[in-house]
């Protein structure tokens, strides 16, 4: 299971470091697939309906539906393929490293029961959440915002699955919320920004400031 968790973390770093939007989307899809795999890895999980349900749903949403939608809208919006970061890609990677160190040193203090998953799941979850947030802050295109948001959600999901034994319904509801948020963000943000400003750069929202 550690290898899967490390894979999840690496995909987050791929999104930090890659300059092409399509690569980012692929990385997020891979991350989703790894997450759903992780749910099935503990022993006896195939016999538990909640585990199977959660894995199937999250695979369908995180790996197929949302990446497909993202790729489709990438084609529709006819935007450039570059990420356009406000913080350069190299610096982003460096920041990712710093956040990783912070997460690992902080996670020692958080003592949560993680069974049946290894303890590594906590620092990885924190790292992914940090990276997702960092993407939200440092990228300007609406599409990258959605990707950042998805990675943030994946971090929360990792936290959530440690609870699946006791509170299966709460976790499942959280995943379904992902779907809702995904659809909303896609529909509203990309469509409207594109329509109003002829491109999908959220920098344009600055124009909405009150005139003085």
């Amino acid at each position, binding site marked *: 299971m550690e290898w899967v968790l490390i894979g999840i973390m690496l995909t987050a770093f791929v999104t930090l470091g890659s300059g092409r939007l399509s690569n980012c989307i692929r990385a997020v899809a891979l991350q989703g697939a790894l997450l759903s795999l992780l749910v099935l890895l503990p022993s006896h999980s195939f016999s538990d309906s909640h585990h199977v349900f959660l894995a199937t749903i999250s695979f369908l949403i995180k790996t197929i539906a949302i990446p497909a939608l993202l790729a489709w809208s990438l084609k529709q919006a006819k935007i450039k393929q570059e990420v356009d970061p406000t913080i350069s890609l190299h610096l982003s990677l460096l920041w990712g490293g710093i956040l990783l160190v912070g997460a690992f040193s902080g996670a020692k*203090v958080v003592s949560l029961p993680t069974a049946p998953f290894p303890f590594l799941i906590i620092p990885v979850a924190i790292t992914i959440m*940090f990276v997702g947030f960092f993407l939200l802050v440092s*990228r300007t295109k609406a599409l990258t915002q959605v990707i950042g948001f998805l990675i943030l959600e994946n971090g929360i999901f990792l936290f959530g699955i440690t609870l699946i034994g*006791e*509170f299966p319904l709460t976790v499942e509801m959280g995943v379904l919320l992902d779907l809702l948020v995904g659809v909303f963000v896609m529909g509203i943000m990309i469509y409207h920004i594109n329509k109003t400003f002829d491109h999908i750069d959220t920098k344009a*929202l600055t124009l*909405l400031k009150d005139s003085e």
Partner: protein
Amino acid sequence: MILLAASTVLFMSGALGSILFQRAALKKIWALGSVLAGSLLGLIPAFQVLRNKITFAYSFKETLPGLKFQFGCDELSAFFLIPLLGLSAGIALYAFGYLKKEKHLLGSLACFPLLVAAMMGVLVAQDGFSFLIVWEIMSLTSFFLVTTEHGNREVRFSGWIYLVTTHCATLFLLVFFILLFKKTGSFAFQDFTLLSSKSYLTGFLFLAALIGFGTKAGIFPFHIWLPHAHPAAPSYISALMSGIMIKTGIYGILRAVTFLPPLPLWCIESLLVLGILSTVLGVLYALLQHDLKRLLAYHSIENIGIIIIGIGLGLLGRHTHNAAIEFLGFAGALFHILNHTIFKGLLFLGAGNIIQATHERRIDQLGGLLKFMPLTGITFIIASLAICGLPPFNGFISEWLIYMGLFDGVKDLPRGPFSFCIASLVGIAFAGGLAIACFTKVIGVVFLGLPRTKRELPLQEGSWLKRLPMIILAILCFVLGVMPQLVLPFILPTLPVLGLKVPASALNLPIQSLQTFSVTFMILIGIFILIALIYKALLLNKTKRLAPTWDCGLREPSARMQYTASSYAEPLSTFFYFLTGPTVHFQTLKGIFPKTTSFKTHVEDLAERNLWTPFVQKTVEIMSWVRKQQQNQIQNYLAYIFVTLILLLLWEVWVGI
């Protein structure tokens, strides 16, 4: 428990039905009928709890880690459930009549059963988390009811004030419950008792609770929403809000007392000071109001002050280990809660009748209503006598209990608490006098004399549905005054929950003399009837002549020359100039043939004028500066959130709260 759950379901379905159906009649039947049925159903378990002393509790399965929704009904909840459900049932009946021709008031009707259900939830919640949820539902539904007539600018303004203040109060409650959760590791009320008794922490928690709950209860200086919201709401809602919703704040304070460690003395003293301030200033501002419902709202503040003094006195007794004072303080406060629900509900229903018949809220425009609306007039007078604390009505008994406790305190307590007892005594006595002045003003101007303005429409009382609850409430005012021992079975089981260890029967207390009250009052009433009969008999064979009362040598006095409410209150207003500071708009007459002029006075609340208005102005200044600093980039805002979250996480991990 099943019955309480069933009545909640009834309230919910009533609200739903009232939203779904379009026809006015169906809307009304669903909402009001459900309130009526649900309240009567819910009264049964409340009585059972108090009578058989069987409390019950139910907790749901753990939905999130460390979080359980717990509901239950102990004696304290049951004691508050009785006035809540009783008054709601009465108001539902009244509303059937009140809403007959008022189509425009139906929009928010669905919130009425929801509000009752939420208040019930507040009373039966047994953990901090579910308490906050139902508390918020209560605030929001009452907000929608206050802003029923939202077409009116003033109503929108009042609603806005209410919304802001109630949310500030919730903020303090949030702090209160989360701190308790951090310290004890659980949200359940029964686990809060494990809190270690550090005096500064207890004091801080109590202050948070006092501000949070006190705002809802209307304690000075957190009362500002009350005089705005009550006149804006439809009258039956004012009756519900003033009669019972503000008592949920008192319930909160009492509930906090049950699980907090023993309070330090300064907390109790500040409670008493706030109680005295509310009592005196509440009644003083009531005296100077021109608006009938605003006046009643200020009287609610006064009565809340009396209840707070009772609670403070009880706590003082506990602090000094004087069981008699403890008993009298808490018993008086609980009794006054019940009484205030009865007579304040009645007063607002009466005010509703007056306003619906005349479409006028200004006291100085009314007059002579007793002839046209005898039932409203008589019940209003009974409620006024009760609220002034005059025998033989119920207000007298509860104030008497508190007085007895205060006198005991003066006699037995050491020097520090002693002076607070003296101050409270003076405060309550003073407020009692002013309350009488205030209600003689209202009754004299509104009900006696002649109508001050010509009215086209014939003045009517309204249907029997409106009259019935008023009659019941008036009878209750009288019965509880003459037979106060009837209330003891409700109060005595409640006191141990509040932490009274010594049973009342072990104390040498004047409860036994409550029976003697019945005898004394009966004799008094007998004498009164006898005198009336003798008077009638003496006049039997004399000729009667009808004539104008007093025309001051004028040939044809008009109704507008009557003594007005403002002139009645003027001497007191001048005397307390430093507190009232009325703004006067008047242009003096000039020249030989002066032009028409007008005279207008307007009294602004001390707390509103000198505390909250400057505070709000400063806040707006700072916030408008902050607003100019915005750069309007999503990334920046996200970065702010990100940094805040990380700092909070680090703080929590390394320091802890």
